[in-house]
């Protein structure tokens, strides 16, 4: 196999008009940016032999908003809401990563109660993110119904968010040094009710899909990626775990309150689309377990650490990463001692995982590209930032 960057011409859409299907080494199809299955505005240029994929080239940047540059012109506090807009389906995780990174830079630690609240919300958000992934992924493969089931159940999570901080999607729930809001009355009850409610629903999704012959045929041995390739490409999150690598930052370098919880890291063996599905389903169940433990053990106490009114970290740099629903979400912050960061660099899991697309779909069919894009669980807001 040749490298797609050399086999594709620089301007892939500049096609030779006389070339057609039969000398199909050259059929180039432009998928996206307005394509229903590219999860936003991803543009994938596919080089096809008939329906077989010879190579892909992702064209990104349609949703670029310069989040990292904006950070340089905002104070640390002011930049906090911007991170919510990156991976907008897992906004809580983004905020957690940013806040913890800045806290690390400031050498403060959020109080235990804040850490527990953070864990609960982040895990709820993980479930919401996986639900949204499942719905859209299933829709890509042609199953309409799971989308509506998952959206129905995701709604319950968003309701809890709304009650907690007033926002549903871009929550802006955390502040540097802890949480802005104390939990509302009945928060624990709401969360426990949700756990009660959603556990059978996850079984319901599995009932629809896990043993469905068509689903299995469409996902087994599709988009296979080995553990070695994953590590070489820096792929993280469920994609990495489905390839059999037991790597989860919640265990590997616990943050928030994760070292207090007992949970397992589900892994797969084949690294195919089906395994990634299974891993994510198992992760949702593990998240439920974590939330239950967190709600049971949530300590009393303050929710904000002592943080100066004007955040002015000392000169230095920090890299902190967390396990976002999609993989390792890292923030690299350089401080020049002023109130504004000198440079913020985000390591978005979607962006890194997207690089594996070409490797995973070589030799597969067009329909598999759809399935693989779905299974990578990318959010273009995060890829383009």
């Amino acid at each position: 196999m040749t490298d797609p960057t050399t086999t594709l011409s620089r301007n892939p859409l500049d096609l030779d008009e006389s070339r057609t299907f039969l000398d199909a080494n050259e059929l180039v199809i432009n998928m996206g940016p307005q394509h229903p299955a590219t999860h936003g505005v991803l543009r994938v240029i596919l080089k096809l032999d008939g329906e077989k994929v010879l190579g892909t080239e992702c064209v990104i940047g349609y949703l670029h908003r310069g989040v990292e540059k904006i950070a340089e012109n905002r104070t640390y506090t002011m930049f906090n809401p911007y991170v919510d807009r990156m991976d907008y389906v897992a906004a809580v995780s983004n905020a957690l990563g940013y806040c913890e990174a800045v806290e690390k830079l400031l050498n403060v630690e959020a109080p235990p109660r804040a850490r527990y609240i953070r864990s609960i919300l982040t895990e709820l958000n993980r479930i919401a993110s996986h639900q949204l992934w499942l719905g859209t992924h299933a829709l890509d493969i042609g199953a309409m119904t799971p989308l509506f089931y998952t959206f129905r159940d995701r709604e319950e999570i968003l309701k809890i968010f709304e009650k907690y901080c007033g926002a549903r999607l871009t929550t802006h729930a955390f502040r540097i040094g802890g949480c802005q809001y104390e939990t509302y009355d009945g928060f624990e009850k709401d969360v426990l009710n949700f756990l009660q409610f959603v556990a059978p629903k996850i079984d319901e999704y599995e009932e629809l899909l896990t043993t469905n012959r068509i689903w299995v045929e469409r996902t087994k041995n599709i988009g296979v990626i080995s553990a070695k390739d994953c590590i070489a490409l820096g792929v993280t999150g469920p994609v990495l775990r489905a390839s059999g690598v037991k790597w989860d930052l919640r265990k590997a370098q616990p943050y928030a309150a994760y070292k207090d919880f007992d949970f397992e890291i589900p892994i797969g063996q084949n690294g195919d689309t089906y395994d990634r599905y299974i891993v994510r389903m198992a992760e949702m169940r593990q998240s439920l377990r974590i939330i239950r433990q967190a709600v049971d053990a949530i300590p009393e106490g303050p929710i904000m650490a002592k943080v100066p009114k004007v955040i002015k970290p000392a000169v230095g740099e920090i890299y902190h990463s967390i396990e976002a629903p999609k993989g390792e979400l890292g923030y690299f912050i350089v401080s020049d001692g002023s109130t504004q960061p000198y440079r913020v660099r985000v390591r978005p899991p979607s962006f890194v995982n997207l690089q594996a697309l070409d490797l995973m779909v070589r030799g597969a069919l067009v329909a598999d590209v759809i399935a693989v894009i779905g299974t990578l669980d990318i959010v273009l807001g995060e890829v383009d930032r």
Partner: protein
Amino acid sequence: MLSYLQSYLGGDALTPGQAGNQLWALIYILVIFAGVSVVVMAMNWIERKALAHMQVRLGPMRVGPHGLLQPIADALKLMLKEDIIPARADSFVFWIAPLIGLLSAFTVYIVIPFGPTQAVTDMNIGILFMLGVSSLSVLGVVMAGWASNSNYPLIGALRSSAQMVSYEVAMGLAVVSAVLMTSVGGIGMYDVAGDGIGTLSMIGIVQAQQAQHVWFLFKFFPLGLIAFFIFAVAMIAETNRAPFDLPEAESELTAGFHTEYSGLRWSLFMLAEYAAMVAVSSIAVTLWLGGWLRPFPNALAGPTWDFIFSLFPGLTFLALGAIGMFGFVRMPAHPFFRVQKLGLGGFAAVLALIGVLLLAIPFAARGHEGTILAGFAAGLSAVYWFIAKVAVFMYLYIWYRATFPRYRFDQLMSVGWKVLLPIALAVLIATAAVGVLIPVIQVWFKGRAG
């Protein structure tokens, strides 16, 4: 003319086509055309509602009570929309492609027997005619894809032509095994002509099932069941519905072969698709589910049972009316809902009225055997049972769509060629073999006994 009409309504005449009565045939064609169009619109509404309720949502609710007028609004909208022909498209082929699809979908209705005489005509090659004409719809699809001069429609057209042609083979073999059953007498069964000759005529096939006292679904168990299953799978692939809706796979090819179509022309494709769904379901019903025959026409024979079963149409409409009434009662009494509430109540009342009328007919016809009224009641019952069976298939179509993911193209092909085709061939051979062997064994047993 009048005498024919009398004897026709009396129920003991030939179909209009066979009798050579062109005027009556024309009326029939118009009735069927209008009926199918209405059914397609109703199907549109039912599909959206049923699918919505399977997916925990409400579906159309705004246009009319419970969205009942939604199909009409949609049809109006589609008619008023601009009819776009892409600049570099082949405008003539682009123009004629949906018409080919529509024509092939509607032409098959000529031979569909809604009742013993309720068909436009009865051909002695009826089932072949249906298969042939419905296979012409591939042409419309291919031409639409080619004429759009765009990559997605072209791939969609290539896919669907390959798919429809492949599944036609398995479908045809399944049909042949059912046709074989018309001639093959089993234990305690005899064939319709009495001389071991089968029939390809749609009406003849149903009559054979009546004469043999068995739906072909259950004949030579499980051979009939397997053949039916093959047909049921192939017919979904033939009509490009989920889980075989690759030609219009939304997430892959945007909309497949009709990506470039808009407005009225697009709606013609939709009309053709739904009409084809009804048509192939009718084939399945005719071949394996006893067509217009009511359940247990022989085991529960006699005028009393006939009477009881002829009550079903009226009862169905009454039940529908009751559901409508339930909705009417449940609707809030707010003035905002007044029009909708009245509309729903009126709709339910009309349904109930039809139900009462349909109930009245068998009561009035009771004890007047041989009159026009009795013939009419019998015809009504036959048509009702036919439509009821087809309706089950239409519901299954919706159900599949809500449940299954979509096959990939190569998997679809391998299912067609490597699974369905060998099974269909095996079933065909087994049916023929069983049909030959059973009479031999019977004779042998009789010889032993005598």
